[in-house]
């Protein structure tokens, strides 16, 4: 019998309607409550759980005390085994992390996490990719690729995962600096990766020459990128697992997952570089940029890879930007976005661009 874990961050999303852009930090929660904010996560979690309940599946539900899952499970009519010890009304990020670790110890097959980017980052910090997770979207900021589209969709995916099993794919966990965000600056950071169940539009993957397995498709992309690489040219390799596959195809196993690396003559020449270092290295040389969009959000520039600044892109040339993405990632990321921080450059990317999706295979994708 499959085991499902459930963690609810009850305060996630409270800042949204009162314009606080998130609830990271306990003083913000107090302020949100003063402004009349009501919890939204519990009700949205119940919606997801009701979908699972309706399908009458045989599984064990494991959750945390009170409003961190037990209350929601009860409300949805699901029987759950409750663990942990929290102070109702005063739950913290530490509780979320502890809950994730305890569920990992209990060997759950999947943790359903209700919250926003901050909650996901907490969970990933605690358990990394050791247990698959799926996000119920209840937060204000949801830039990570681990969320289902709606609470109901989360319920459906969980049900399919429990009933039929679903493949897993790596997805980005992003977080935005709330301080900056409240001042209308968006500084999204890549916090890590999670493994999430993925519902492929099954044939799509196979019809376009995909193996249906994301790792194999990343390898196919990497092979093709390798064939396209030229000697004497500098390649600016953006963050992510798809770009990491390119590095690994070159025999480089210590590339920077969350940062930008430089490759020249098939060798890693600089790790985790800043914008300045990139500009210095490519000066007077032929260069190309290899990036992969952030899953679901679709940003190819300006999120998680701010080192690849408008200046860098201009020096390299727009036509030398290679965008790579697996068919699986594109299936959940139908359009791409740019927010390089230079409106004119962003405009130049708009319209259709060619994205490499496999070995000798690409796809025209719209940048909006």
């Amino acid at each position: 019998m499959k085991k499902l874990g459930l963690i609810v961050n009850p305060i996630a999303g409270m800042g949204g309607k009162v314009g606080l852009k998130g609830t990271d930090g306990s003083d913000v929660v107090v302020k949100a409550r003063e402004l009349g904010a009501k919890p939204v996560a519990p009700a949205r979690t119940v919606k997801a759980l009701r979908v699972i309940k309706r399908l009458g599946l045989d599984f064990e539900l494991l959750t945390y005390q009170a409003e961190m899952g037990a209350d929601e499970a009860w409300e949805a009519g699901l029987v759950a085994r409750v663990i942990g010890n929290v102070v109702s009304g005063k739950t913290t990020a530490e509780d979320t992390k502890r809950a994730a670790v305890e569920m990992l110890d209990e060997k759950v097959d999947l943790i359903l996490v209700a919250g926003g980017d901050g909650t996901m980052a907490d969970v990933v910090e605690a358990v990394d990719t050791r247990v698959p997770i799926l996000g119920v979207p209840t937060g204000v900021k949801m830039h990570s690729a681990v969320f289902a589209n709606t609470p109901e969709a989360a319920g459906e995916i969980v049900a399919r995962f429990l009933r039929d099993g679903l493949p897993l794919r790596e997805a980005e966990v992003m977080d935005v600096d709330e301080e900056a965000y409240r001042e209308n600056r968006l500084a999204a950071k890549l916090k890590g990766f999670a493994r999430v169940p993925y519902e492929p539009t099954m044939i799509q993957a196979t019809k376009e020459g995909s193996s249906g397995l994301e790792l194999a498709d990343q390898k196919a992309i990497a092979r093709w990128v390798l064939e396209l690489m030229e000697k004497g040219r500098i390649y600016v390799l953006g963050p992510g697992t798809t770009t990491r596959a390119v590095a690994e195809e070159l025999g480089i196993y210590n590339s920077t997952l969350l940062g930008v690396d430089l490759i020249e003559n098939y060798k890693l020449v600089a790790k985790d570089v800043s914008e300045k270092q990139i500009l210095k290295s490519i000066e007077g040389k032929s260069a190309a940029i290899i990036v992969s969009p952030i899953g679901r959000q679709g940003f190819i520039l300006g999120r998680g890879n701010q080192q690849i600044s408008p200046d860098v892109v201009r020096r390299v040339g727009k036509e030398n930007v290679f965008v790579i993405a697996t068919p699986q990632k594109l299936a959940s990321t139908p359009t791409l976005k740019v927010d390089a921080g230079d409106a004119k450059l962003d405009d130049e990317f708009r319209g259709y661009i060619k994205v490499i999706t496999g070995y000798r295979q690409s796809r025209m994708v719209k940048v909006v």
Partner: protein
Amino acid sequence: MKFKQASWANDAHLEPLVFELSRANRTGYTLPQKTPSGANIPENLVRKKLELPELSEPEIVRHYTRLSQMNYGVDSGFYPLGSCTMKYNPKICEELAALETASRIHPYQDEGTIQGALELMYKLERHLAEIAGVARVCLHPSAGAHGEFLGMLLARAYHKSKGKERKEVIVPDSAHGTNFASAAMAGFDVVVVPSNSKGRVDIGALRKAVSKKTAALMLTNPNTLGLFEDEILKIAEAVHKVGGLLYYDGANLNGILGKTRPGDMGFDIVHFNLHKTFSTPHGGGGPGAGPIGVSRKLEKFLPVPVIEYNRKRRRYYLDYRRPHSIGKVKAFYGNFGVLVKAYAYILLMGASGLQEATEAAVLNSNYIMHKLRGVSGYELKFDASGPCKHEIVFSAEPLKRETGVTARDVAKRLLDYGMHAPTYYFPPIVPEALMIEPTETEPKEELDRFVETLKAIADEARSDPEKLRSAPTQTAVGRLDEVKASREPILSWRMYRKLAKQ
């Protein structure tokens, strides 16, 4: 109507294999005592023992009759398998193909003794060329995908002759999976263009995709949504402008046959599936026939041999002296039996008959579209303000959202009602797709029954979803493990035996 398929089973085991039924010395045949003298077969190649099954004639007859009763075909009932055009195969075509003069000739016979066969192929080529609006047709490819591959090889040869290496083939995201594979096999890089909200090629994306690297665009028209690419002339212009070729996938020719011609739309290479459009049987992997037609500028690259007619000598002959030919794509001249059936079908129908078939095929699918529209649980994903062509793609997504029952479950449940399932989960751009192609030969009553059944299944999904998840239960074989079947296929007695030993 009640349906229950015959199931010949002993305990959990279905009708045994003919090898398993075999009992020593129970033969229904007589073999020559020894190798005929003068056959000149080296001693080490002569088999001492033949592992043929040993059964009496009635046992054999029963075995195959039982298997046929556990099968389902277009001769048993409705078969709306979208984009496969499972139309009825007239029996007279089978009879003609079985004639000794058609079935007992050999490709190595002297040309002078097979003039009739050559004439038949020559004339079939001419008919197909006229139907498609092309200069010349090659009948060699022995399957649809084989024809696609030949089409791509011709595109490659054409560009090479122009002194330009063109590396990219553009394929819409609604295309058949074989398009991607054929282009890749012929050495091209594949560029996918998305469909727009009307289910047609996004012309903006296409214009961005074409370049001096473009070798060809592979297009199915009507496309796999059953919709006519109404911007085909603009599409052709965009591709031709950069020097690329336009390739026509013939999967859906049944939707326009006799009404319009791919050649007139600007296609340079036109593909046919005789086993779809021209009513020859689908062979379950063969024998099929996937002829390729080409415009004048590509003619010289066609595979050898080409059948020609010498007017002076009044004689058909095989022409191998074609210096620009890409060479051979098949040992001989095509799957002749299939070609005979297609030729017979064309003569049987005549030009007006073919037109009428298209009209009926399109009428039937529009009838289903209008009757099924508004039935709760199913919806159309793309703009269907106008008529569809020979097929229509519904989505069972609303049903899935409401009940958790998927398009696959609906398809499997249809089998319990004595109907073949539509193609499901294709094209991939429609979630929970059910791709329905009724074909021209179905009567109104059958179409009505199909729509009523889909309604009944939607009701069942609400009242008893488990029933759908365990369907089919009225067939000889229940729901199969499709993943296992495609990952670990057992295709021969030898493989089966090896597995049994493990």
